[in-house]
C-alpha cells in the first residue's frame, strides 16, 4: 500500500542510484517551478498557484487518510476556516496577508485536534459520516446570523490581492505564486520529515496494526487526534492561501464538493505518497476544465468517467502507477532470480 516502499529485492546499488536520480529530479522540478511564472501568462500562473494551494491541502489530508487511515469527507471545512481567517483578518482587521497564514494554520490545528478527540472512537462508516457532517454543516455555520457580522454571511467577503513587496517588478499573480511556492516548499519539507520520522512510522503502524501499535506503547489516541490536527493545519493554510489568490470567500465556495474533491485528489494522486499530493492537485485543478471542454451537456458525466477510468487504470493512483512503471523498467535490468524468496 505504502507507495514509499521500494520494490522487493531491489539491489542496494540500484536503490542508491534511484535516490540520486530522485534528488536530481527534485532539483529540476523546483527550478522549473521557480521559472514557471516568468514563462507562462498571468492566468496560467494563477492556475498553478491554485495547484500549489491544493497540493498543500492534499498533503494534509494524506497525512490523515493516507498515512493514518482515517477517512475524512469533510476537510473542506478546515479549508473554509483557513480561508475565512485570512479574509476576516485582512478585511476586518487590516492585518497584512502574510500574517494571516500562521494564524489560519494554528487555529485549524486546534480545531482539528479537538475534532479528532471524539473522532477517535469512530471508524470507517461512522468517521465518514462524522466528517461528512462537518463538511455539510460548515457552510451553514458560516452564514449563520450570529457570525454574519464577521463572515459577511451569504454575501461573503471580498479581499484585495497583495502586490509584490519592496518594489519588485512582479505582477501580483507572479508574486503570489512565488509566495505560495515558498510556503509549499516549507510545508512539504516539514511534512516529509514528519512522515519519514518517528511520528510517521507511528501513524502508519496505527493504520496497519492498531492493536500491535498500542501494544508497542504508541499512544494511539494522541497520535490519531494529532494526525487530525496537523492535517487540518495543512488544509487551513491552504485555505488561507486559496482565499488570498481568489480574493473572495463565501459559503458557496466551500460546499461538500470541495471536501469530496480533496478526497478524490489524494486517491487519484496516490494514497500515502508525498508526490501524490501534486498529481492529485493537478487532477482536481485541471480535469474539471477538460470535462467541461469535452461536453457542455453533461460535464459531470465526463468527470465521473475520468474518476472511474483512473481507478481502473491506476488503482494505486498516479504516483503508484509511475512507481510501478519505474520498478518494471528497473526490473528488466535486474535478474529474475533476485525476485525469488519471500
Amino acid at each position, binding site marked *: 500500500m505504502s507507495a514509499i516502499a521500494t520494490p522487493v529485492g531491489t539491489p542496494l546499488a540500484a536503490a542508491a542510484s534511484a535516490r540520486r536520480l530522485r534528488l536530481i529530479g527534485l532539483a529540476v522540478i523546483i527550478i522549473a517551478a521557480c521559472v514557471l511564472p516568468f514563462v507562462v501568462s498571468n492566468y496560467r500562473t494563477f492556475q498553478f498557484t491554485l495547484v500549489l494551494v491544493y497540493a498543500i491541502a492534499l498533503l494534509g489530508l494524506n497525512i490523515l487518510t493516507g498515512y493514518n487511515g482515517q477517512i475524512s469527507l469533510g476537510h473542506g471545512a478546515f479549508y473554509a476556516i483557513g480561508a475565512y481567517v485570512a479574509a476576516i483578518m485582512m478585511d476586518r482587521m487590516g492585518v497584512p496577508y502574510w500574517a494571516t497564514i500562521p494564524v489560519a494554520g494554528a487555529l485549524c490545528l486546534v480545531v482539528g485536534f479537538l475534532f479528532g478527540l471524539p473522532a477517535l472512537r469512530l471508524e470507517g462508516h461512522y468517521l465518514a459520516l462524522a466528517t461528512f457532517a462537518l463538511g455539510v454543516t460548515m457552510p451553514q455555520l458560516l452564514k449563520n446570523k450570529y457570525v454574519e457580522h464577521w463572515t459577511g454571511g451569504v454575501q461573503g467577503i471580498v479581499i484585495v490581492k497583495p502586490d509584490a513587496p519592496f518594489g519588485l517588478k512582479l505582477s501580483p499573480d507572479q508574486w503570489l505564486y512565488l509566495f505560495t511556492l515558498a510556503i509549499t516548499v516549507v510545508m512539504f519539507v516539514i511534512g516529509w520529515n514528519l512522515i519519514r520520522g518517528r511520528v510517521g512510522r507511528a501513524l502508519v503502524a496505527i493504520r496497519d496494526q492498531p492493536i500491535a501499535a498500542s501494544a508497542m506503547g504508541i499512544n494511539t489516541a494522541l497520535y490519531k487526534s494529532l494526525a487530525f490536527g496537523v492535517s487540518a493545519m495543512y488544509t487551513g493554510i491552504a485555505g488561507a492561501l486559496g482565499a488570498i489568490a481568489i480574493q473572495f470567500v463565501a459559503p458557496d465556495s466551500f460546499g461538500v464538493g470541495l471536501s469530496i474533491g480533496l478526497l478524490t485528489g489524494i486517491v487519484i494522486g496516490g494514497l500515502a505518497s508525498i508526490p501524490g499530493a501534486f498529481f492529485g492537485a493537478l487532477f482536481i485543478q485541471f480535469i474539471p476544465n477538460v470535462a467541461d471542454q469535452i461536453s457542455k451537456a453533461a460535464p459531470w458525466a465526463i468527470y465521473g468517467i475520468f474518476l472511474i477510468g483512473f481507478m481502473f487504470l491506476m488503482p494505486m493512483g498516479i504516483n503508484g502507477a509511475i512507481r510501478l512503471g519505474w520498478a518494471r523498467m528497473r526490473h528488466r535490468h535486474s535478474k529474475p532470480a533476485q*525476485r*525469488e*524468496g*519471500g
Partner: protein
Amino acid sequence: MNFPAAMNKPLLDVVDLHAGYGLTRVLHGISFGLAEGSITTLLGANGAGKTTTLRALCAMIRPQGQVTFDGQRIDARATEDIVRLGIAHVPEGRGTFVHLSTEENLRLGAYVRKDRAAVAQDFDRVYGYFPRLAERRHQQAGTLSGGEQQMLAVSRALMLRPRLLLLDEPSFGLAPLIVGELFGILRAINQRERVSILLVEQNAAMALDLADHAYLIETGRVVLSGTSHDVKRNDAVRASYLGY
C-alpha cells in the same frame, strides 16, 4: 507411482503437482494417492508444503499438474465446483464465519445440498458428535472457544456429506484432551460414514495412529510414503518427526 498394492483405483490421485504464491514456488511436483475410505496423512515440517497442497487441491491457489478425483480431472476447476463434487476442506485457522451463529455456520456447510430432509437429520448427527455445539447453537461463532470452533469447522465440513474431508492441522492450538476427543470422532466418522480423510498434521504421532497411509513431504516433494505402520518404523521419521 508408489501406491500400495492394495489400492487399485484411488479416490484422489495427484500427479506432479506444482503450486506457489506469486513468484514463490512451494510445491515442486508432488504425487500421491488416496484410497476410497482411507485416512491418509501428509507429514512434514513447517513450510514443507502440506497446507499448500491442500489449498492447491481445492483451487484456493492455482495448481499446475494433474489432480483426479473419482476419475474426473479437477485441477482446472473452481473451488465452488470442487466442493460440489464432495470435497470438504477444513482450512488452516478454521475459517469460521465469526459474525454468524453456530447454527448458521452449519447451514452454510450444507449450502450446496438440495436434500433438505437429510440436511435436517445431519444437524442432529453433528450435534450428536459434538453436543457442545448443540448448547451453543444460537451463539455468535466468533465467541466460541478454540476447541469449539475447531469442532464447528469439522461439523461444517460434515454438513456437506463429503466423500473426502481435507483437514488442515485440526489439533492446532487445542488442549491434548480435546485433540484426543476430536481424533476419536474423526475415526468414528471415517469408519461409520466411509468418509475418506486427507489429514495434514504437525503432531505426527497422533496422525500416524489415526491414518492408515502416510506421505512425508520435504520442501515440496514426497520423500517417503507407505502404510502408517511402515512409516512409523522408519528411522528417519522416528528421529525427526516422532522424537524417539
